[in-house]
């Protein structure tokens, strides 16, 4: 087919007439990949796409794989820290009236546990897997807006450090991860602890939002030629829907935390009922974010399940379109459910049935997903390897969590279990079962792609069974103790209530579960250093990330693949069709149309730059300073403006010029 076909104006918006004259700015041409042999192609691309050497070079990297690796490691470290928090809390709770830690520390511990797990582990790690995998799966060479992506990592890591340094200084927030006012307001939370919460939330959400926008644009505009909407892998769909949910949900938490910091810092009265504000407004705003947040964490995990199952069941996913639509439906519905965190606040009684019905309704699209996965598995003899084991564990645990979720959706029933250990059990079943187990499965599944080495299968099985037993021992009894009347967030409980033995059992399970992660960490490190070499496509899976080498080169694909099927590698067994004609001396990649993925533009991707880091430092310093004085925003404006101008000002690279 000729290039004339590709550039025909057929599906372009009307503006495109003018762009025929678009090349008035003369394009300096350079060498193309057409006709280059593989070795020289590799030499060219490796030089063009490399991350510069040295420390400054490393800090300037804009390679999505480099950034994603940093993200993954950082998020895993935060998981370990959050897990340690949990273990300490469980030791305190292992018996009645234990004096190991007092309420002051305990309240910081559970707040930090929640904040770390939600904002520093769960959301970043699903986004990080997306940063790594989405560009590979859609067949492009880098994420859209690579510098923004680098910036978001620096923002994230400094936000996390900020929270944990505060904790080390005993300045960590102690008001719960959702920091309800008035408890976190100016009157009842003196000191800087609640300010740390508010600013750290606002700040780290900047990074999530930036990644979400980059992901959406990557999926919309950087898909390989031919990957029309119906050929996008389910994992990419999941990340796309998640990113949309982030875009519409995260601003809510930023608004909430900004209102809070204004109340605390400059004396506004937004949440103060004595001066015309309202305490419940905080909860409405917070949960408008907080409920979608659950799906932000869960949807990417379903995408991982949808990637692992076809590879092991050896058939394309049953009900592909149905799964995509359920992802979209879940994303849509998640915005209508926030009130079910607020049943106990005394909402209008008339609404109860509406709230119950709409909360339960989300079980339908989730049910569709589960049934389609099962139907896919029925078809064939699945090969049981560690990734699939974790998927089975996901079914086992997540279905329980989903069903207790149905219980919580019932307004009258919720009034008994709300804010008890039953809820603690429920959301750990949903979040660990629904998100962490698929993530662990995904780790075993994609680790060989990322490192080029296999993970130990034997340790993996040990890890799985230890995690299963530890998890269920720790969290299943929480349902019961919750029904027995144990509220959450208590640092101790009296002996006469008879919760001692069961709590001891829970604590033992929690330690076991923690140990399973120690084993996992060992397996990760050991396999990264000593693992058996993995091939390019060891699972014989069908999506594009397996078409390149393990680990992928800096430019991802020597030539951009052309997609003819939802599982392109299965459809093109002999030879993958590829596109040629891109320049190799600059970072050129293909921009395609949104729906049909017709190649449309050859665009240049940004080169490495130190400015995103400097901008993150400027923004971070401003936020940190703003805890102490609102004038920080004024003083911080200049460095932020300078770093942003430095970031965007062209430096004469060919990438900037065209």
């Amino acid at each position, binding site marked *: 087919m000729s290039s004339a076909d590709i550039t025909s104006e057929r599906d372009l918006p009307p503006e495109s007439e003018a762009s025929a004259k678009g090349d008035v700015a003369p394009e300096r041409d350079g060498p193309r990949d057409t006709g280059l042999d593989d070795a020289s192609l590799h030499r060219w691309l490796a030089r063009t796409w490399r991350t510069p050497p040295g420390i400054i070079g490393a800090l300037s990297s804009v390679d999505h794989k480099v950034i994603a690796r940093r993200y993954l490691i950082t998020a895993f470290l935060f998981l370990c820290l959050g897990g340690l928090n949990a273990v300490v809390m469980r030791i305190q709770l292992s018996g009645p009236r234990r004096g190991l830690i007092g309420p002051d520390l305990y309240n910081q511990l559970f707040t930090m546990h929640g904040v770390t797990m939600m904002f520093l582990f769960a959301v970043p790690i699903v986004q990080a897997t997306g940063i790594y995998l989405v560009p590979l799966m859609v067949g492009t060479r880098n994420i859209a807006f690579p510098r923004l992506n680098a910036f978001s990592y620096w923002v994230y890591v400094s936000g996390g450090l900020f929270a944990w340094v505060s904790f080390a200084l005993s300045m960590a927030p102690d008001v719960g991860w959702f920091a309800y006012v008035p408890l976190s307001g100016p009157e009842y939370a003196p000191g800087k602890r609640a300010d740390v919460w508010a600013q750290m939330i606002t700040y780290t959400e900047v990074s999530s939002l930036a990644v979400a926008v980059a992901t959406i644009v990557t999926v919309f505009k950087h898909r390989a030629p031919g990957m029309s*909407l119906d050929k996008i892998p389910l994992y990419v769909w999941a990340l796309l829907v998640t990113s949309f949910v982030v875009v519409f949900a995260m601003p809510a938490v930023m608004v909430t935390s900004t209102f809070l910091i204004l109340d605390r810092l400059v004396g506004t009265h937004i949440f103060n009922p004595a001066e015309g504000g309202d305490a419940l407004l905080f909860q409405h705003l917070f949960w408008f974010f907080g409920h979608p947040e659950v799906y932000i964490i869960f949807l990417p995990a379903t995408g991982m399940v949808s990637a692992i199952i076809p590879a092991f069941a050896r058939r394309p996913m049953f009900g592909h379109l149905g799964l995509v639509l359920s992802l*979209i439906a879940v994303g*849509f*519905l998640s915005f*209508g459910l926030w009130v079910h965190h607020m049943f106990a606040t005394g909402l209008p009684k008339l609404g109860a049935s509406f709230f119950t019905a709409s909360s339960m309704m989300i079980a339908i699209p989730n049910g569709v997903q589960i049934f389609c996965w099962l139907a896919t598995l029925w078809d064939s003899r699945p090969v049981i390897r560690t990734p699939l084991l974790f998927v089975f564990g996901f079914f086992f645990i997540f279905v329980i969590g989903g069903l207790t979720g149905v219980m919580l959706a019932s307004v009258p029933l919720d009034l008994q279990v709300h804010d008890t250990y039953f809820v603690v059990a429920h959301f750990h079943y949903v979040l660990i079962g629904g998100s962490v187990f698929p993530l662990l499965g995904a780790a075993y599944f994609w680790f060989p792609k990322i490192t080029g080495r296999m993970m130990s299968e034997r340790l993996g099985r040990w890890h799985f069974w230890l995690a299963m037993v530890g998890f269920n021992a720790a969290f299943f009894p929480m349902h019961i103790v919750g029904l027995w009347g144990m509220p959450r967030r208590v640092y101790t409980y009296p002996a006469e209530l008879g919760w001692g033995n069961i709590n001891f059992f829970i604590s033992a399970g929690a330690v076991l579960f923690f140990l399973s992660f120690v084993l996992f960490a060992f397996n990760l490190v050991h396999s990264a250093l000593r693992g058996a070499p993995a091939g390019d496509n060891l699972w014989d899976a069908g999506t594009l990330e397996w078409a390149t080498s393990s680990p992928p080169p800096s430019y991802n694909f020597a030539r951009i693949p052309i997609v003819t099927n939802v599982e392109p590698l299965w459809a093109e067994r002999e030879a993958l069709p590829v596109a040629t004609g891109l320049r190799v001396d600059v970072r050129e990649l293909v921009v395609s149309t949104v729906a049909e993925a017709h190649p449309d533009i050859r665009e240049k991707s940004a080169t490495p730059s130190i400015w995103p880091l400097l901008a993150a430092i400027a923004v971070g310093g401003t936020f940190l300073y703003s805890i102490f004085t609102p004038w920080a925003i004024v003083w911080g404006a200049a460095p932020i403006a300078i770093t942003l101008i430095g970031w965007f000002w062209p430096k004469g690279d060919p990438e900037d010029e065209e």
Partner: protein
Amino acid sequence: MSLEAFFSTSICYGAGAPEAGWTLAFPITLPLAMLALIYALGASRLWRRSGRGRPERLRQALLFAAGWGVLTGALVSPIHALGERVFSAHMIEHELLMAVAAPLLVAACPGAALMWALPATLRRGTGKLTHGNVLQALWALAARPLSATVLHGIAIWTWHVPALFEAALQQGVLHYAQHASFLGTALLFWWALLPRSGRRQTYGSSVMHLFFTSLHTGLLGVLLLLSPKLWYPANASGAALWGLSPIEDQQLAGLVMWVPAGLIYGGAALLLAGLWISNSGTREATHALRPG
């Protein structure tokens, strides 16, 4: 007969039967009857003209009948009279107009049938009229998905300003205008968003506009639900008819606007997303982006 008297409440709400009667006043029944008549006439002419595409025609006719039925149900049945004094009934009526009748009527693509009902000369006349430059430009602007969504949103929010809403309750003309603008902008909104033959489909943006509409109408519903004060005291005078206190009446109205109506927008968005996805592949196939 003065304009005001013509649209006066008593006519608007039927003679007598203040509790829950049928609304049989001319200003409402006449246009509805005319609409049905014209459609029937045009459709039958059109059917006689060409025999092709029967199942498609039948589907359209059924959709139109359903839409017309809902419209009539909302405007003529007791729900309309009740809406005068029970706010939640009023809300149900509005939602039937905006979120049920309007999409059904638009999906029926009644344009051709309605046109064919006109005598041949007039048909050409309207053809000329719609080709007028200014009108056409205005129409093109209004029928863009974004402007249609914004216009519909403005209509919804503006009429819920307490002063305007209460004025509409008291003055027949305004009430008529209120319903007309709800229905009119809703028709425009759905017309701009729903797919139809003969234009480039913009499913993706339609999905986002439906999502946006569900969010902003949801916000209005939530405000009605959570507000402890009565927005339109005059509209809740008969809340007891439904066994509700006035404030509960308002809460129910808010819930109707938020949950069922939101689900209709969501369902429509999902349907369009499904079409978008499945069509992207076939479109790609017809353009034969095949390797080799």
